[in-house]
C-alpha cells in the first residue's frame, strides 16, 4: 500500500460558545496520496476553511485522527505544530500574505530562517525557486512594488523552499485577475507534474477543474469525491486511442 501524504479519519470540529454549538466539520474521512492534485470545493460556511486549517496544522480537530506524511498532528503542542508547518507544508494564501515592504528574496527566505538553515544556503535556494516561478528579475522588488499575480508567485516560491510534503493553497486565485490566475494555475500544474502533492481550496468550479480530484464539502460533510472533468476527458482520450 502506498503511504498516504494525508490520512484523515473521522475528523470533526465543533465550535462551542455559551449559547450555541456549531458543527463545522462532521466526521470527515479521506486519504490523499503522494502526487495527487486535489481541489476542495464548497460554498462558504460549508466547513472547507475549517478543513483547510486542520490540514494545514493551523488548528486541531475536536475529534478524529490526522496523520500528515507519517506524523500524527492532532495531539501536538503549539510549537510542535509550528515545526510541522515549517517542514511539511507550503502555504499559499488568498491574500498572498507577504511581509510588507520586504523584498521578494527576503520573503522567500523566511521559512528557512525558522528552520535554522545557514544564511548563504537560504539565499541560493530562494533564488532558485524565484527563478522557477519566473521572477528572476524581480527578486529585489518589495511586495508593494509588484502585481498581485507576481506576489502570488513569490508566495508559491516561498511555499516550495522547505521542499514540503504538501502544498496547501487557500483560494490562490481569489485576489488575482483572470489572465494572471491562469498563469498561477499553470505553475501549480507544473509543480504537480514534477511530483508535488497539492491541496487547493476554492469555490470557483473552473479553477477546481485544474485539479485531478475534487472533494465537495457541504454542511461539514463530504458530499462528493470524484475525479475532475478534465481528468475524465484525458482518460476518455486515452481509452479511445
Amino acid at each position: 500500500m502506498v503511504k498516504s501524504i494525508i490520512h484523515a479519519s473521522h475528523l470533526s470540529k465543533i465550535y462551542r460558545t455559551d449559547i450555541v454549538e456549531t458543527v463545522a466539520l462532521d466526521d470527515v474521512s479521506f486519504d490523499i496520496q503522494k502526487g495527487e492534485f486535489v481541489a476542495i470545493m464548497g460554498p462558504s460556511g460549508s466547513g472547507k476553511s475549517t478543513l483547510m486549517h486542520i490540514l494545514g496544522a493551523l488548528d486541531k480537530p475536536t475529534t478524529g485522527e490526522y496523520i500528515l506524511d507519517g506524523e500524527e498532528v492532532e495531539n501536538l503542542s503549539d510549537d510542535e505544530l509550528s515545526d510541522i508547518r515549517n517542514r511539511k507544508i507550503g502555504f499559499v494564501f488568498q491574500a498572498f500574505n507577504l511581509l510588507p515592504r520586504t523584498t521578494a528574496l527576503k520573503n522567500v527566505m523566511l521559512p528557512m530562517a525558522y528552520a535554522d538553515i545557514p544564511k548563504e544556503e537560504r539565499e541560493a535556494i530562494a533564488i532558485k525557486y524565484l527563478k522557477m516561478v519566473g521572477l528572476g528579475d524581480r527578486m529585489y522588488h518589495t511586495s508593494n512594488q509588484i502585481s498581485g499575480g507576481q506576489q502570488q508567485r513569490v508566495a508559491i516560491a516561498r511555499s516550495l523552499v522547505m521542499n514540503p510534503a504538501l502544498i496547501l493553497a487557500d483560494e490562490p486565485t481569489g485576489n488575482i485577475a483572470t489572465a494572471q490566475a491562469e498563469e498561477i494555475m499553470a505553475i501549480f500544474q507544473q509543480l504537480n507534474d514534477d511530483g508535488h502533492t497539492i491541496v487547493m481550496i476554492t469555490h470557483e468550479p473552473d479553477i477546481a477543474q485544474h485539479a485531478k480530484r475534487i472533494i465537495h464539502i457541504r454542511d461539514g460533510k463530504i458530499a462528493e469525491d470524484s475525479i475532475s472533468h478534465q481528468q475524465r476527458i484525458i482518460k476518455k482520450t486515452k481509452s479511445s486511442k
Partner: protein
Amino acid sequence: MTLIETFLESLGTLTLNKTRTGLAVLGIVIGIGSVIALVSLGQATQLSIQNQIESLGANLLTVNPGAPRTGAVRGAPGSDTTLTDEDATAIAASSQITTINSVSPEYSGRTQITTAGNNTNSSVIGAVSTYLTIHKLTIDSGRFISDTDNVNMSKVAVMGPTVALTLFPDGSSPIGQNIRIKGQTFTVIGVTVAKGGNGFNNVDNLIYIPLSTAQKQIFGVDYLSSIAIEAKSSDIMTTAQDEVGYFLLARHKISDPTKADFTIMSQQDILNTVSSTTGTFTALLSGIAAISLLVGGIGIMNIMLVTVTERTREIGLRKALGAKKTTITTQFLTESIILTFTGGIIGIILGIIISFVVAKLLGTLFFVSPGSILLAFVVSAGIGILFGWYPAKRASNLQPIEALRYE
C-alpha cells in the same frame, strides 16, 4: 534565527515607521536624560558645597552659644548671650587643652554699610588677629586687623572683594578710603582674596572690623556670637571637641553635659548636615526623574501593543511559516530593547549636555558620576524587557488562524 539576524530584522522593522519609533524613543530619552541631568546637578551641588565647607578649614571647631537642641531646630546665632571674651581667652590660655592651636572670638551682625554714593547690607564680623589664619583667609592688599587695633578699639575695616566691588564700583582701591558702618566712619585697611562660593556662606561678601569696636561701638553687646578654634590636626577633632567642651562646662559650672549652654560643632558635623540635606534633595530630584522614566517605559509598552495589534496578520503568517513562540517573543522583545537602548544612549548624551550647560550657567561644578550613567543604561535595558515583555507575550500567543483572518 540567530540573535544577530533577529536584531537586524527588528532594526529594519523599526526604521519602517520612523515617526512612531521616534516618538517611542523620545519618551525614554526624556526619562533617562532627566535622570542623568538631575542626579548630576544634585551631586555637583553637593560636591560644590562640600568643597566650600572644606575650604573653610577641616580642623575648625565652632563654639556657638545656646544649648544643643534635638533635631534641626536651633536658635539663631546671637540669640543667646552665654559666650564671652573671657571664655575665649581662658580656652586659649588653658593648660588642660592640649589639642588646639589658636582661638578666635567673633561677633557678627548685619548692618548697613555706606560710602559717598553706594550702600550695601552685609554681615559685619568683629574679629581678632587670629581670625585670618583660622578661617584660611588671605589678604589681597593692605593688612588684616591687628591686636593693637583691638586694644585701641580702632575704627578700621577689612572687606571681602564682593563688598569692595559693590562699594567702590569704579575699581579704585578701597585702601585708605572711608566707609560708614551704622553711621560711624571707618577707614579701610585691607581687602581679602576672593575665595569663591555662592549663596549662603559667601566669605567674599563680609566686612571685618576689630572685635572690641564691633561689640562696644556698633552693636552694643558684651558677649560673642561664636568662638572659632583651630585644632592641631583634623585627626584629633573629637578629642579637641571633648576637651573644649568639658573645659567650658567647668567654667560655666554646669555638671550635666546635656544642659550645656553652648554647642560645639566641627566642620565635619556641618558637612554631614549639609550632605544629608543635599542628599535628600538629590534623592527627591531622582525620584521625579524616575517617574518620567516610568512614563517613558509605559509609552514603549503602549507603542509595542499598538505594533502587535497592527501586525497581527504578519505574526500569524510568521507562525504559519514555522515561527515558534520563543521566536516571536524574542523578535518583539528585541524591538523594544532596541527602542529603549537607543533612547537610553541619546538620553545619556542629552543629560550630560544639560548638566554641562546648567553647570556653566550656575557656575557650579560640572560633574557626571559614572554610576548614574551605568544606572541609566541598566534601567533603560530593564525597561525594554519589562515593558516589552507583555506585548511580546501577547504576540507570541496569537493563534495563527485568528491572526491570518484578522483584517
